[in-house]
């Protein structure tokens, strides 16, 4: 970024830089000396584009231990979530119109469910426990004979809480309903073995894992009854499930990012854990601070803390040049307290004071140390102005 030296970016859960290798792979598919042909074309140049796409599909499939045929390319996790939820609900509506999800899902999940409610589908909204986890007994109790789809995210984008997808999937299988998982925050970061995980639909996006923005994928399990109705109609690309010219450079970018993620996953995990530990150690003694969600159930790339007697928007400004999030990046513009944190039982005021720190491969210990300084100073300064604390 211009004047990047000044900024301390700890918002990797919102988006990541593209890995230099990924950028290189993408560049090779764009300009006149590259493979820019339309992969729908049958001539040599078109078939070369297809080869690149097949290679990339293999890379993503390899990361997830599944077959390339199970992956559909989309424009991002938002589209994948919509295609999975609207598509499966419509395809299977004759089997029942009851759906189950959680209140702490991303809006790309909650909003399609709300759209389905308007089409007279019946949606059960489960609340998490105070630690952020789903109580499986509550899920079990919610499943009915006419339940056809459950959607539970893997890693929460605000708190980092990891749900137990395997056991949730087992429950769904027992009840004969499909499980969709929004894995936008976990693909390439936590091991996901689709050959053994009992899930049916999974949404992904590249830009959270050092790939480009605007490319995602939907996994559709090769099981009878697992299918979606398309949202878009057009040229017959992707077995008519998602037409449109395949954006070869974007797909190659996601593929390369997946391959890199696979080879670095355990190193990345160790690094993120160290960064979170360093940060939490540096601020946990501040009076009135607490994590949102149980830290031991959370993906280490995210640390979400609330603090008493501090207004969130002022905190964010006082933290500059630190780039962090309040609530999810996708609703930072609205000033309402995060519905995710509210669902964890946090008060409006505590929810509003939340800061989501998120770490990435480029994060260095000195970034964390700067963040600690900035956070401590901002809290001290704002508390110095607060009618409660100052008095």
């Amino acid at each position, binding site marked *: 970024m211009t004047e990047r030296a000044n900024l301390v970016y700890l918002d990797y859960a919102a988006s990541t830089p593209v890995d230099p290798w990924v950028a290189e792979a993408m560049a090779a598919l764009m300009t006149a000396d590259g493979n820019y042909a339309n992969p729908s074309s049958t001539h040599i140049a078109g078939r070369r584009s297809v080869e690149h796409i097949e290679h990339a599909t293999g890379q993503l499939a390899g990361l997830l231990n599944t077959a390339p045929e199970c992956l559909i390319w989309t424009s991002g996790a938002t589209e994948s979530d919509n295609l999975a939820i609207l598509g499966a609900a419509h395809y299977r509506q004759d089997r029942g119109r009851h759906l189950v999800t959680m209140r702490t899902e991303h809006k790309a999940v909650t909003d399609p469910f709300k759209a389905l409610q308007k089409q007279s589908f019946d949606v059960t909204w489960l609340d998490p426990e105070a630690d952020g986890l789903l109580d499986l007994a509550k899920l079990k109790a919610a499943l009915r004979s006419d339940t056809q789809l459950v959607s539970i995210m893997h890693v929460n984008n605000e708190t980092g809480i990891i749900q137990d997808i395997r056991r949730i999937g087992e429950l769904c299988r027992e009840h004969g309903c499909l499980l969709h998982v929004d894995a936008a925050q976990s693909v390439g970061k936590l091991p996901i073995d689709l050959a053994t995980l009992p899930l049916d639909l999974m949404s992904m996006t590249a830009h959270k894992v050092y790939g480009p923005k605007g490319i995602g994928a939907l996994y559709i399990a090769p099981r009878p009854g697992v299918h979606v109705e398309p949202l878009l109609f057009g040229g017959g690309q992707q077995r008519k499930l998602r037409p449109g010219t395949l954006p070869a450079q974007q797909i190659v970018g996601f593929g390369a990012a997946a391959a890199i993620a696979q080879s670095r996953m355990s190193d990345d995990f160790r690094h993120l854990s160290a960064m979170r530990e360093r940060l939490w150690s540096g601020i946990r003694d501040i009076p009135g601070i607490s994590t949102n969600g149980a830290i031991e159930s959370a993906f280490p790339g995210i640390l979400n803390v609330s603090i008493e*007697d501090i*207004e969130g*928007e*002022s905190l964010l*400004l*006082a933290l500059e040049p630190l780039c962090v999030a309040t609530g999810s990046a996708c609703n930072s513009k609205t*000033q309402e307290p995060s519905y995710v944190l509210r669902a964890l039982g946090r008060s*409006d005021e505590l929810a509003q004071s939340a800061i989501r720190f998120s770490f990435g491969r480029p994060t260095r210990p000195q970034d964390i140390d700067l963040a600690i300084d900035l956070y401590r100073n901002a809290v001290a300064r704002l508390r*110095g*102005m*607060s*009618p*409660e604390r*100052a*008095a």
Partner: protein
Amino acid sequence: MSNDPYSARVRELFDAPAHAGCLGGELCAKVEDQGVRICLCAEPEGGEIRRMRFLAWGCPHVIAAAEAVCAYYEGRSSAELLDFSALDLMQSLSVPVEKTGRILVIEDAVRTLGGIVRDASNLDN
């Protein structure tokens, strides 16, 4: 930056709120509304305000507005507090419409403070 939600003036006031604090006296107006908590206090001297301070829990526009108000009134007649209108302030700070309610809380606090100061000086006389 063109899409900065805060004007240069708001940033300046927020970054260096020289009038943040409490005078510890009794001439203090506390108002809480619209999710904003504000406490304004004044030290008058012969009909003039010698010092004015604020404490606030609120967004940057609220803090900037409180700071601007304190800076403005120091050296002015305390009677003027009663006539305070937040309109100019909203304009000079480019307060977005959805936040105007919060700035009106400050208007309320200033006028309340004006009343407290007037009542106190009436007592003195």
